[in-house]
Each structure stands twice: as structure tokens, then as C-alpha cells.
């Protein structure tokens, strides 16, 4: 499996910052990966190389850890990441219809990124805001009590501003 690489300087900066913050030890691996994943949007191959070198952890172990946890991605993600809560409380209050509407509007499947690089659609485990289900998160914005017919309007907020 190949993992994409991005500009070395950006990667180095992100890794440096995370390692400085947490310290270069193996027990800080997950916090470091979390930070780098957040800064870069995913974990590119050269970031994993650099972390492996700094922490003196074999690359095999890094790949093993980064592929295990759901929040880490080894694939580039779109400009906007849409997360859909697929848990039971959201499911029983109309989550299925919202999911269908998301698939319909974004025209991509779960885990996929749109060809124009604008959208990535992923499912997430329970976000613990079940009181207002169904719930979706776009980037860092959380939307509760979502109805299928609101999807178009919610998505439009992100395409219009071009953020």
C-alpha cells in the first residue's frame, strides 16, 4: 500500500510542533499522531517517516497504529469533512433518511472523497449528543435535529463561502 506524500516543509513543521508539545516517547505516539492528523488533515507517508525517526519506533508499528484508529486517515481528505453519526439513537429517529440524503447530494460513498476534492464523507461513532439526533458534523460545526430536506441547504453553506 502506498501513502501519499505532501510538501516536506509543511510536514516537518507539523511533526516538530507535535513532538515538541508531547515529547519524543512511544507513549506519546497517539497524541502526536492526533495533532499531526489534525494539522495536515491526514497522515502522509513522509509524516510517518519523520515520526518514526524522531520517536525511534519502527514504521511497521506506526502504520499498524495509524490504520487501527478511526480518526487517523492515511488518505488525503476533502476540503470539508462531513461526519455522519451512525449510532442507534440517531438511527431510530430518522438517521437513515438523512444518510440517504447525504449520499444523494454528495454523490460519494462512505469513506470517499469527491473528485473535485471538496467533500469527504465519513461515518462516526456516537458523538454523545443523542438528545438532538440525527446529528451530522461538517468540519467543526455540529448540526442536530437534522431532517433529510435540510441537507441541501446545510451543504450549500460550505460551497457558497468557498471556505
Amino acid at each position: 500500500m502506498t501513502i501519499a506524500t505532501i510538501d516536506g516543509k509543511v510536514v516537518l513543521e507539523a511533526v516538530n510542533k507535535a513532538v515538541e508539545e508531547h515529547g519524543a516517547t512511544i507513549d506519546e505516539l497517539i497524541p502526536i499522531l492526533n495533532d499531526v492528523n489534525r494539522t495536515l488533515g491526514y497522515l502522509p507517508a513522509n509524516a510517518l517517516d519523520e515520526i518514526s525517526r524522531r520517536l525511534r519506533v519502527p514504521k511497521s508499528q506506526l502504520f499498524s497504529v495509524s490504520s487501527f484508529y478511526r480518526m487517523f486517515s492515511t488518505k488525503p481528505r476533502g476540503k470539508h469533512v462531513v461526519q455522519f453519526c451512525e449510532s442507534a439513537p440517531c438511527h431510530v429517529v430518522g438517521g437513515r433518511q438523512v444518510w440517504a440524503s447525504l449520499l444523494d447530494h454528495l454523490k460519494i460513498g462512505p469513506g470517499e472523497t469527491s473528485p473535485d476534492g471538496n467533500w469527504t464523507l465519513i461515518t462516526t461513532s456516537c458523538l454523545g449528543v443523542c438528545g438532538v439526533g440525527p446529528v451530522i458534523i461538517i468540519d467543526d460545526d455540529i448540526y442536530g435535529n437534522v431532517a433529510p430536506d435540510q441537507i441541501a441547504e446545510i451543504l450549500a453553506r460550505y460551497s457558497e463561502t468557498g471556505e
Partner: protein
Amino acid sequence: MKYYRSHVLVCVDPDCLRKGAHEALDAFQDELVAQGLIDEVQVLETSRIGACSQGPEMMVYPEGVHYAGYTVDDIPFIVEEHFLKGRVAKKFELAAEKAIDEELSAPTPKEVRVVLRNCGRIDPENIEDYIAEDGYMGLAKALTEMTPEQVIDEVLASGLRGRGGAGFPTAKKWQFCRASAGTEKYVICNADEGDPGAFMNRRVLEGDPHAVIEGMIIAAYAIGASQGYIYCRAEYPIAVQTLNIAIEQARAMGFLGQNILGTDFSFDLEVRMGAGAFVCGEETALMASIEGKRGEPRPRPPFPAVSGLWAKPSNVNNVETYANVPQIITNGAAWYAGFGTEKSKGTKTFALAGDVKHTGLIEVPFGLSLREVVFDVGGGIKDDKGFKAIQTGGPMGGCLPEAYLDLPVDYESLTAAGSMMGSGGLVVMDDETCMVDIARFFMEFTQEESCGKCTPCRVGTKRILEILDRICGGEGREGDIEMLETLCEQIKQDSLCGLGQGAPTPVVSTLKHFREEYEIHIREKRCPAKVCKALIRYEILPDVCTGCTVCARNCPTGAITGERRQAHVIDVDTCVRCGICMQVCNFNAIVIR
């Protein structure tokens, strides 16, 4: 310390600030001075107490009256009515229904708030608020008046059991860990609350973080640990942030660090964030994750109390378990044991979700019946539909039908009924729920969350899911039910950790209580609840249809035809059963057969 007869808490959340919270605070102070009440009534700032939609909102204690929707000009009136005349200024009182935040409302008569007592009432980012509610008193008592053994005895006498779901006596765990050889020991808080629909722990971490921290320090003292970790899931960024602030403040006050409260006991605490893996809620997987590895469970024994984090003796308890500890020490074991049943003492928080009128967090003494929980505390079924089942114990729990509604909520009763206590998710389902679909749904969850280490769980859940997919897809076969039963039994017996052992429970419990639904799906190729897409079809009632064409225009596959003002028809072969036509029809002319 100065005593006030009343406390006015004004919400200073961004929403309420924009609506003039600071102006209201000032006006209150001025009016109280003018009326000569300033020594009797204290005005304080607090975080969000409601929806902030009619801000600035405020809460008057001890009465617990929630005011909103007033302007600065109304404040003299409220002060006069409430504090001079002693009656509620009804005009601005927010009815309990509207005042609640959507997660945690004022307690209903059958509730007892121990763990949730401070949530929504104090500022979680201000340690003094917690101290004012007798916070850190338990710690002071434990450190200065009790030996570690006495602390363990007190917790043992209280009957506190693990709130993560397994119900193991907490003090026993502590005893084992204390007795383990070694000087380096760890206290770990399992805040990886991954069960879908369960958010009790999140609310405690965000609303009363010091209760958890205090509980952990007391546990560390009892066990003889000097370092602790709170492992919190990454899906809860606010909880992580709140905890970090709280730890910082506790350190500054001398509750954490070297020589706590001037004694020779030292302990410090660190928050560790997960990265999205349900199985990390299993204690051995959790510890692997803290060590920077894949969060995969390992066989027990050795138990963490003997060989845990970095192979040192470790004590892992759930958020709610720790949050109970300070009050047990402060108020005594007898007080705590006064709640609950003979074997299940105290209270339990639950997250009530699904088709129930009042969703959100509740805290009830053990022993209340499921009926009381659903109908008295939860207000009954949404839209007054019929009750079908209640799912307890999260994705590894089971669904219980109406016949079990009078079952008391305690560890033993739920397990005996084929479900379990779990961490506290309660999903109520109305009579339009398909139980086969629900079983399939939970199996999809566990199948995806299986870490893959042991075969029964990795492969077995996949096979179960395939069979359930077939049944829901209208391709069920004779023998499927028997095959499911065999698989369930084997997975339960042979899996490594609680995830695999519990994975079959939703299927086992629905097979036990709703077997006929499986049979109808398989033999009659029909879904009685009209949920499984492959087994239903949409039809337009010709007598009701007005021929408005809305459905035809909205149909994504062009399956609906018909002339304007004439009854329309759905072509069964083209229809993908998305249900949009039914949603858009203004005349309820579309039905599911």
C-alpha cells in the same frame, strides 16, 4: 463564610452575553442594594443553564426558579416579587419544559441526583464552585482522618459497584490493587464512553470534572498510586478541555501534585485522548492505547490489578464510579447504601434516548422499574404510540419487550432477563420499530468495531451480519434462525473480551422475545413494522390522492406516473423505496404495504 438566603445565577454564555447578561447582572446588583437585600441575595455568573434562546437566562436557588425573556427594565419587578414578596414572578418564569437544556432537565420526582448533582448548576471551569458544594471535603477527610484501609472499608460498606457496566465491587478491585506487589501503581479512569446513545459520562466530565478528579485522588490514596490517567475518547473534545482546566486548577490549589493538603501523599493526573476505537473502552485495550499501541485487548488474567499499564498494578474504574466516591467518603457509606436495592446500592445515571417523550440524562436509585423509568421519568412514548421494546446496556445489551416493564433496574435483574446494565444507555423503541432491523443494526456496529484480534468475534460477527442482511433483504431461509443461535452461542463462549462475548446479545434477546418477527420475515417475506425496504412497497390510495403531482415531481427514479388531478400510481419495479413521496405528500395518500 457569609451566608445568603438566595443565590441568583446569571448565564454568561456568549448567547446570553449578546443579549445583555452583564447589564442584567449590574441592574440586579443595583436593585438589590436599593431594596436593602444585598446581604441576603448573592448574584453570580454561571455557564449555560438553558437553551439561551431567551437570554439572559437566570436561575434562582434554592427554589430552582428559571427566569428568562426579561429586559433590564423588568429587573426591579422581579426583585420585588421574588425577593421582597417571596413569590415567583410568573411572567418571566420559564416553564420547566422550555427551561431544560436538551440533555439534562430538572429532576423528576422519582430521580435522585448524586453523580449529576452539580451538572448544570456550577461552573465547571471554576474550582471554587465545586468547593462551595462541599467539593474536596471527601479528599480532606480521607487524607487526614482515615487510613487507606479505612477508605477501602468505607467504599466496601457503601456497596458501590463498577458503573462501567460489569458491576464488580469497586472496593474489592482497590483491595486487589493495594495488595499487589510493587511501589509503582496507576489509577486509570475509563472515560472512553463509546456506547451509542450513552453520554452520561460526557456530561459529568463537562459539568462536574472535579468530582471525577477527587474520586481518583481518593482511589490513588487507597491503593498507593502516585500517577493517574484519564483516558477520554476523542469524540469528546470539550470534555478533554474541561478536564485539563480542572486538573490545572486542582494542581494550583494543592489537591494534585506533591504533598497533597500538606500530607506526605503525592499524586498527579494526566488526560489521554483516544483516537476513535470503540474497543478501547475494554480495560486492557485502553491500557495498550495509553502505551501508544493498537488498542487491542489481551486475555485476563493477569488482571490489571496485578499487571496493568506498563505491566504495573493498575486500577481501572469508570467515570461514574469515581464520581460517586467523594460523596461516599463525605456522607458516609450508610447514607449511600440507603439508596437502591439489596445488591445494587446507590444510584445510576442513564441516557434515555429513542422514541421517548423526554430524552436526556436521568439518575435514578437502583430498583426502580423499567416502567417507571420509561413512563414516569421519560414521560412515555413519543407521539403516544405503543411501547415495543427497551434496549439496555448498549450494543452488547439486549432488547426487552413489554412483559419485562416491571423488572427492577439492577445488575442482577437485567442480566437474568437476558440483557445487561452496561454503562447506562437506554434506547426506547415504539411499535413501528423492526426488531430484526435493530438486531442487524447493532451487529453492523459490533462487526465494524471488532478489533480483529480473535477469530470468533472477527469472523463470527461477520457471518451473523450476513444472515441478518439476507433476512432483512427478503432472502431469509429455513434454518437461518437455528444457525444464528449456534453462532451466537459460540461467539459468546469463545471470544477474548467483552466486546465479542457481548456481541451476540442483541440477536439472542430479539430471538428470544421477538422470534415471530424473524419467522414472518423468513417465511412470509414480510416486515410487520414496515421498515425493511426489500419487504415493503409504497402505494397511493386512489380515493385520497388529489393528483397534485408533488410526489411525481419529487420521485428520484420517476416511478410515479399520473395525470394532473388524477390519482397517481407507483411502479413497484422502478421504486427504490426511499420514502420521499410519503414525506412530501400533503394528503397522507401514500401508504406502506
